[in-house]
């Protein structure tokens, strides 16, 4: 009798543990709620992208048909063909890559120098330098951009990639402050022992930096370069002011998509199916982020683990 009761109690406890969890596991109810919640938020998060992708695959007839919401009636790539031509894709793609990769390589190189100097040497006024670095992150671009633009105009550098490379060479590239902090944190977390040993062996400071500190900071380099590349790619305020008329990047071309489309397909000259519609625009938008998506999925580990690896949050 008593044993039976014990058994029942035990079963109940087991079921309860299964559903509600214990100290070691979350339990069924919680797990299901967790996944549902994450999936729902994930869907809302990706909604603009899904909307963009589905719409960009719709043919003009699908667009007009109210029955077609999420599944186009067929695979239609006409929008992409048009967007490809309007964006002048091969040319703008190459200049977008150049305009984002070159400054970011320079930024990473210069920021590693600055970050090392801040992490390894106790010099007078270091705190002031730190405060000023943070200030450069806060100052809006429009408070400094006009005199720069006028200077570049005098030097004949407008529309030239050097307009972006010059500031980067002096640690004033786009969001350089963040990369300086990343390198600062990285070098601070590296043990000093090796460098001190090398110094006792008579190695110069520069040699120590290049041969011991830099190789150890490889993750910081990768993180800085990919983030800088992405941010330079997406930056349009400075690129429009400095490069307009010389270099066309993908986002710049997307910004004047309507105008470029009408140059290729004059509104009065083409039939109704070739007029500019939202499907073509969204195809253009998708082509715009496609290289970034590819880069993201290839390097996703570096992106999402970056904050932990670089210790940017600091203590």
């Amino acid at each position, binding site marked *: 009798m008593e044993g039976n009761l014990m058994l029942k109690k035990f079963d109940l406890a087991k079921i309860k543990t299964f559903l509600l969890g214990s*100290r070691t596991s*979350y339990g069924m109810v919680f797990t299901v709620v*967790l996944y549902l919640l*994450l999936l729902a*938020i994930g869907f*809302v*998060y*990706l*909604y*603009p992208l899904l*909307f*963009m992708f589905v*719409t960009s695959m719709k043919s003009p007839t699908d667009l007009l048909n109210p029955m077609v919401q999420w599944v186009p009636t067929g695979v239609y790539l006409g929008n992409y063909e048009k967007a490809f031509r309007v964006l002048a894709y091969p040319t703008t793609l190459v200049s977008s890559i150049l305009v984002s990769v070159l400054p970011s390589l320079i930024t990473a190189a*210069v920021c590693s*120098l*600055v970050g090392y*100097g*801040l992490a390894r*040497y106790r*010099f007078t006024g270091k705190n002031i*330098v730190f405060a000023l*670095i943070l200030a450069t992150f*806060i*100052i*809006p671009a*429009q*408070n*400094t951009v*006009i*005199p*720069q633009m006028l200077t570049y105009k005098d030097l004949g550098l407008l529309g030239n990639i050097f307009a972006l490379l*010059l*500031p980067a*060479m*002096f*640690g*004033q590239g786009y969001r350089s402050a963040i990369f300086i902090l990343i390198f600062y944190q990285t070098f601070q977390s590296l043990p000093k022992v090796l460098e001190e040993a090398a110094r006792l062996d*008579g190695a110069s*400071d520069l040699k120590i930096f290049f041969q011991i500190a830099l190789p150890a900071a490889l993750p910081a380099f990768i993180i800085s370069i990919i983030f800088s590349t992405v941010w330079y*790619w*997406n930056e*349009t*305020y400075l690129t429009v002011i400095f490069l307009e008329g010389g270099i066309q990047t993908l*986002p710049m071309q*997307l*910004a004047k998509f309507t105008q470029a489309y009408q140059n290729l397909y004059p509104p009065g000259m083409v039939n109704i199916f070739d007029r500019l519609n*939202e499907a073509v*625009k*969204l195809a*253009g*938008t998708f082509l*715009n982020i496609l290289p970034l998506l590819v880069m*993201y999925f290839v390097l*996703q580990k570096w*992106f999402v683990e970056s*904050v*932990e690896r670089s*210790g*940017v*949050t600091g203590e």
Partner: protein
Amino acid sequence: MTERKPFRFRGIGLRTRENLYGYGFVFLWIIGFAVFTVVPLVQTFLFSLNQVTVTATGIDLLPVQWANYARALVTDPNFVQLLIEYAIETLVSVPIVIIFSMIIAMLLNLKFKFKGFFRTIFFLPVVITSGPVIQELTAQGATSVPGVTNTAAITEFLAQMPGYLRNPVEYLLTSFILILWFSGVQILIYLSSLQKIDKSVYEAASIDGASAWESFWKITLPSLSTTTIINAAYTIITLSHFSENKVIKYIYGQTYAVQGGIGYSSAMSFLYFFLLLLLLAVTFLVLSPRRERRR
């Protein structure tokens, strides 16, 4: 007495040496800061005190003292309105971003399968967010809460509201996903500081009978306070620097407008910068730990 000095300093003192090499490494940045930040900043400020005309040979300055500032704040019918909208939108967005990224970070901090997949999703917008892309998506209505904005009930509800309430609510509805899209970096920052909290503190609390709810308020939240300030500041700065920001677009437009000009837009830039600093200061005051505030 020379043998007392360690050989590696080669005759110069430790202090001088640290200064020499320290500045050696930071040298490039200091030059750059002077040339690409301080000088243009001062020049922009000088422009803001002048009527600037661009001529074939260069630029002409006509001193007008504070007239550009007065015009922006008093005469211009748009600028102050845009500044107010910007401030309200920022103050609406920041708590949403903070709370949302904190919740997502806490969910992602749990142990479950496919964690990497969800982390990848939540970070994706950081990679693809650029002005023109957002502009296209907003124009096609892809950034509003799915199926909400076009509902008759919502439109009716909005129409009933007083104007000062309607704008933020409308902004919230039409740009909700956009606001969430600005949370990617903040989620990761929260996640990394959540992982730094010592697990044994939670264990000790639960042995003492604390519920999960109590642990959150008494352990998790206080441990995240510094991170919250960093995240709030980051959110404000990225929102304020975003090229689709209406104030930035207005200032940019005025730079090349006939009746605007460089002087006027420079004055507006400084007013905008000042408001940005003010918002940052308010955030710091609100979020800094209570103990310090009472002191």
